[in-house]
């Protein structure tokens, strides 16, 4: 009886690990897409609204969903005047926020590099220049999104079944 319960637990845990892994593969392209939407919104704020950066970022944070929303909100709050402790330029604030929030997202290193590079130019030049940088980042992110979707197709189901099968293997070996 005890053995049976153990087998069930192992099978359950293995399946869950597989499902979690699969969910990460599914979340990555979705979050990249959301990041792209956020950049598009930023582009509009800069080109038509000429909204100041802290305000634009806090508006964006209200528009996107969770892990990214926190990221933008923390950049916006560290840019606003009274909290100078987090850094003084956009680049410093952006870097600190991206590095601390990135582990909470499903996105990987290439996306992080692209986003960090955007942070070092944001707010520091004229409108045309800003739009070019944002578009460049969008293009990079689109490429990453395509490869993330590829990975999703390839590994999502695989990791789901692998989790369960791995658990089954452990059970067989232990019995």
């Amino acid at each position, binding site marked *: 009886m005890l053995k049976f319960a153990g087998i069930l637990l192992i099978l359950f845990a293995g399946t869950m690990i597989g499902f979690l892994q699969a969910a990460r593969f599914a979340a990555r392209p979705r979050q990249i897409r959301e990041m792209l939407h956020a950049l598009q919104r930023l582009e509009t704020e*800069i080109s038509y609204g000429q*909204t100041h*950066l802290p305000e634009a970022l806090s508006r964006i944070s209200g528009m996107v969903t969770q892990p990214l929303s926190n990221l933008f909100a923390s950049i916006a709050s560290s840019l606003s*005047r009274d909290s100078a402790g987090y850094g003084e330029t*956009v680049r410093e604030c952006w870097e600190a926020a991206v590095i601390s929030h990135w582990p909470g997202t499903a996105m990987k290193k290439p996306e992080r590099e692209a986003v960090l590079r955007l942070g070092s130019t944001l*707010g520091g*030049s*004229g409108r045309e220049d*800003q739009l070019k940088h944002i578009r460049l980042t969008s293009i990079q992110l689109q490429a990453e999104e395509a490869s993330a979707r590829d990975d999703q197709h390839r590994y999502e189901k695989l990791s789901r079944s692998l989790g369960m099968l791995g658990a089954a293997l452990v059970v067989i070996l232990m019995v």
Partner: protein
Amino acid sequence: MPQTLLELFPTSLRLVLEQIPAVARESLEEIRIRENRPLEIGYGSRYSFVREDGALTDRYREAFVPSKELCRALLERVTNHSIYAVEEELRRGYVTVSGGHRIGLAGRTLLDKGQVSHLRDIAGFNVRIARARIGVASEVLPELLDFNSRTIGHTLIVSAPQQGKTTLIRELARCISSGEWHHPNAREWGSRKVGIVDERSEIAACERGVPTFDLGPRCDVLDACPKAEGIMMMVRSLSPEVIVVDEIGRPEDALAINEAIHAGVRVLATAHATDLKDVFARPVLAKLAADGVFASFVLLSRDGRKVEHRVVTAEEAIRETSRRYSRTIGSTPRDAPRDASWDTPRDAIVQGSLAPAAPSPAQVNVKARPMPVIRSPNAIMPRGDEDA
């Protein structure tokens, strides 16, 4: 120095500025930050360099030197991290931050079809601290009144930079819109509607459209609006009785002022010029003055913290400048000893009893040129034929 302004500076610079002596801090006028060059402040018509511990010194080698990173951070903070949103201001060479403080910028200009399109590599900042001085207008205003129409006459305030033009015009606007005429005979006049065209956002220092300086109850502000267009917009839709504009000097300003005057609006304007001679040497101002647009001119000069003013009516101004019409080669430094005519009592000038000052070598009297003889075309062969 206001706390809000201090918060604008990057931490390392703020630490230095917080330590400067209280005397200098209270009369602080300018903070000049130049990349990799000594930090300088201007206070009470003097200047000093600032050491890293906040002490003032005359020796620039000991002074605190702002680094490149500090200047970049400062630029980002004064533009609220959004250079793209202040491109228009950069093109004109300054940004105005909340509180009405103007920050002049020096850098490398980029040209587009011969016009300045952008300022980049910004390495010099001049932070000018705006102050509201309640009461500065009480001595000036009584001399500008027009008793027939129970309001003020058209007035031009003239001075060199940094002598308090904007402070005075702001205070005049407040007095007019709250009906404080400072004259016993004008006690029952009531207030007037004042329209301010605030192209540089310095007079009213609007934040989201609401003035941060006290401008009285009956004041409308067109913030960041080009003067000429703004004057027309005011006249058309806001029915002002007095229009206040800062730093006129372009031809379109003169056109708009003429329009406003003939629409029954009183104009209160300022202009950069050291004295009346300069006014009559600047084409647009000279035209306005010669047309008799302005009823009076206010000349400002400053000695230490005290601002002195002199009010000259239009007739006196024309008489004075035509008598003493002269050209100065180059201009005199601002801290040069003052012109003797400043110290002569006003009555002497009015009666014309003052003998013309002995001509100094720097002054050239211009005599009326004899008219050229007009010859009839028949008397001389056309030049083209001679050459052929």
